């Protein structure tokens, strides 16, 4: 009994010392990155950065459960003593919120030169890359196929459609974009139309995609990588780029965005990471990965199931305006979602 009890503090102390040594700052350069892009896609990119540059990457990833906002919340909570050097956002609105809160620092990377101005902050507070499109995922058995975001309000689909919680993620952003483009009145009318047409609400884009793949619903508005993922799993779904007609509003495109954090502990390592993420090679890899992200640099190779950005009719919006609109419509969306 006495011998056994001695083992416990010995093991405890040994573990504590091992962990303390592991976490003590050593000689290797380090960069801390908070990532809202799915870990399964972003981690390989960061690991390759580590191998190529010798800079150790320490990452914090987001989850669907925290609605891809866990990393954002940490950044905001840590504002007075930043731990992160870089934030890899999965949409520019979050980057814009960080700029508004004084958490972002300006940095214009030379590798961002080929990226269209629409997808960059003019003062360098964030730079977009590797985008996804907001598309319709439709079950293969659905007929006729929907062609527009407004199909949600078509009575023929009453009770047969699902949308991710409009309080979180890219769904919120797209609805804010609709409000910016069409005005508040039409935006509210659209949301009321969803309610009148008994559109169901799911926790996330991934859940929406799964529900459509299982045949529980006819279609949903999700991100293009959600659809590609299910197609690669041979699930019975199709991807439709909505609103591509001549008089239609176009498809909403959501680029990733990379942000340098103000007052970060390793700013030069952070800049190197940003430079790496904005290369054509990174975009090519993200295009061919299951992330299926659309490159924003011209002349980047991509797989056949993705459409080049130049061939998609893109919704013409300003992300700064969307970020501001989002703050004003959130109480309305909260009410709509039943909270």
């Amino acid at each position, binding site marked *: *009994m006495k011998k*056994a009890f001695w083992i*416990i*503090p010995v*093991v*405890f102390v040994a*573990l*504590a010392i*091992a*962990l*303390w040594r592991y*976490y003590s700052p050593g000689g290797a350069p380090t960069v*801390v*990155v*908070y990532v809202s892009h*799915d*870990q*399964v*896609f972003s981690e390989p990119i960061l690991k390759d950065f580590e191998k190529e540059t010798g800079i150790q990457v*320490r*990452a*914090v*990833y*987001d*989850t*669907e*459960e*925290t*609605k*891809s*906002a*866990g990393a*954002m*919340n940490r950044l*905001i*909570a*840590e504002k*007075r*003593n930043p*731990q*992160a050097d870089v934030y890899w956002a999965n949409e520019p609105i979050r980057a814009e*919120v960080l700029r508004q809160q004084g958490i972002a620092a300006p940095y214009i990377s030379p590798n961002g030169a080929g990226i269209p101005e629409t997808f960059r902050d003019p003062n360098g507070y964030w730079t977009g890359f590797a985008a996804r499109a907001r598309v319709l995922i439709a079950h293969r058995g659905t007929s006729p196929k929907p062609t527009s975001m407004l199909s949600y309000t078509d009575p023929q689909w009453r009770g047969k459609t699902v949308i991710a919680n409009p*309080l*979180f993620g890219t769904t919120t952003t797209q609805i804010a974009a609709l409000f910016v483009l069409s005005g508040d009145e039409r935006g509210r009318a659209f949301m009321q139309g969803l309610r009148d047409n008994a559109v*169901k609400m799911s*926790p996330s884009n*991934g*859940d929406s995609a799964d*529900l459509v793949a*299982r045949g*529980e619903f006819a279609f949903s508005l999700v991100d293009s*990588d*959600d659809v590609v993922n299910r197609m690669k799993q041979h699930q019975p779904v199709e991807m439709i780029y909505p609103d591509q007609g001549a008089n239609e509003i176009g498809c909403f495109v959501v680029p990733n965005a990379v942000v340098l954090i103000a007052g970060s502990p390793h700013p030069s390592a952070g800049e190197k990471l940003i430079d790496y993420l904005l290369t054509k090679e990174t975009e090519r890899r993200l295009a061919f990965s*299951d*992330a299926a992200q659309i490159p924003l640099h011209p002349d980047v190779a991509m797989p056949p199931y993705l459409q080049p950005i130049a061939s998609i009719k893109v919704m013409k919006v300003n992300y700064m305006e969307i970020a501001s609109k989002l703050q004003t419509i*959130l109480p309305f*969306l*909260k009410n709509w979602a*039943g*909270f």
Partner: protein
Amino acid sequence: MEKRLTLVTAAALLAVIGLLPVLAMVTSSFYISGSFSLKAYQTLLASSQQYALLLGRGVLLSLLTSALATIVGVPLGVLIGKTDLPWRGAFAVLFTLPLLIPPYLIAVAWGTVVGKGGWISQAWPSATSDLLSAAFFGLPGCTGVLFTAFMPIVMLLTITYVGAVNPRWEEAGRLVSRWPNVLRRITLPLIAPAILFAAILVFLLAFGEVGVPTYLRYPVYPVEILTQFAAFYDFGAATAAAIPMLVITLAILTLEYRLLHNSILELKPVVPGAARSQIALGSWRFLLFGIVLGWALLTVLLPLAVLLIQSASPSAYGEALLRASDSIVRSLAFAVIGATALTLLGFCCGYLVHSRAPPLWRSVDALALFLFTLPGTVIGIGLISLWNTPMTNAVYGSPAILILGYLAQYTVLPMRITSATLERVPRSLEHAARLCGASWFMSLWYIVAPLAKRGLIAAWLISYVFCLRDLGISIVVYPPGSDTLPVRILTLMANGAPSLIAALCVILIVVTLLPLGVVSLWLRHGARQS
């Protein structure tokens, strides 16, 4: 003197580690941009009708979960802990397994079985499977999943206490009646305080659960707190939104205190190596075995089978180890350190509660239980507010912050187990040691700890399980590059292959069971030697 100093220090530690972050959060909810403001609370009051509906839903879900867990968990605990049911050891482990998995994953596994396009819909008529699917995504499904996840708490506490009842009472009852009546009129009433505590624990855990109701589309109040964090980035509003939950929690704790205030468990003194009294089931043995086996197949083995089948490929486990081996090692290390620290702090606090010597024992007990019921996110953000400063970066930037989180949230578990275990250690032994000149520490080391060994091991194991499966705190404060396995599973769930996620869940179960297996073998070895 040393006893009082140690116990008061332990209480102070709990207050600093647990209460200060919460106070920091509550204080910050009264300030916007540095100025005092009641806006967060005004907004809360303005939406009171909506919130009342969500609160009502949450209370209903928690009541149903707690009631079901008690109705099933108590008889199961009695069968496993007190009778000669065949395979009772295996059943105890089997029914405990859902407690080791984050409830969200149990919901996902059940969705694969009963959801549209799931296993059942392929075997049953579509009308039936549609009905089942519709019921699953709502209150019935939430209740079922949370009941599966939390029933083990009631079962385990019943097993622990039913075997520890002073046999004099049962033997006296057996002289005039049969076992069912003895159980109904003597044993269960004697352990009613423990059962009530278990039911309350289940209620509070279900009340604070977010993942399952969100996935199953049954909006409840904690989702509001998540919304304020994740959609509005408004920590003050999130904290204000947490206040009604805290009020309900305090009400439940007050009820628990009033009901259990004068209850004393009639437990038998510890006799090392003594066998537990057992009820012979006789002709009922195989029927009850069949019922328990059927229940295990339906509620535990079926969702676990989903995980195993989904992960059934060597490449899935290979990829899981490639993607998460570092998280697995870290989870083990953090859980071992966390469990050890919790057992030490829990022991001191439990001793304080048991001895009731310093008048602050009630406050310590209430504080520990209160911290347990707080959403992990609130504690996590509180820890960031308190510890993320240049001066304390050595703590905040290291796994120490996780350990502090575990101590804040889970101290009540080892504390209550210690307190109950110490009820079985005659105080006269301690007093005798003190009279012989032994210090308080010596009497603890040579007398109390050996007699309370099983309870301390149970406290360590339960602390280990909760530290290992923790998500709420870990996800908010883990040091960059140092995620734990449950966090890694959740982050990889976004577009990770189902086989990979299933493999990681199986690995999580194995890692959780590892020390349980080691301790079980060690105890058996010790029993054989003695």
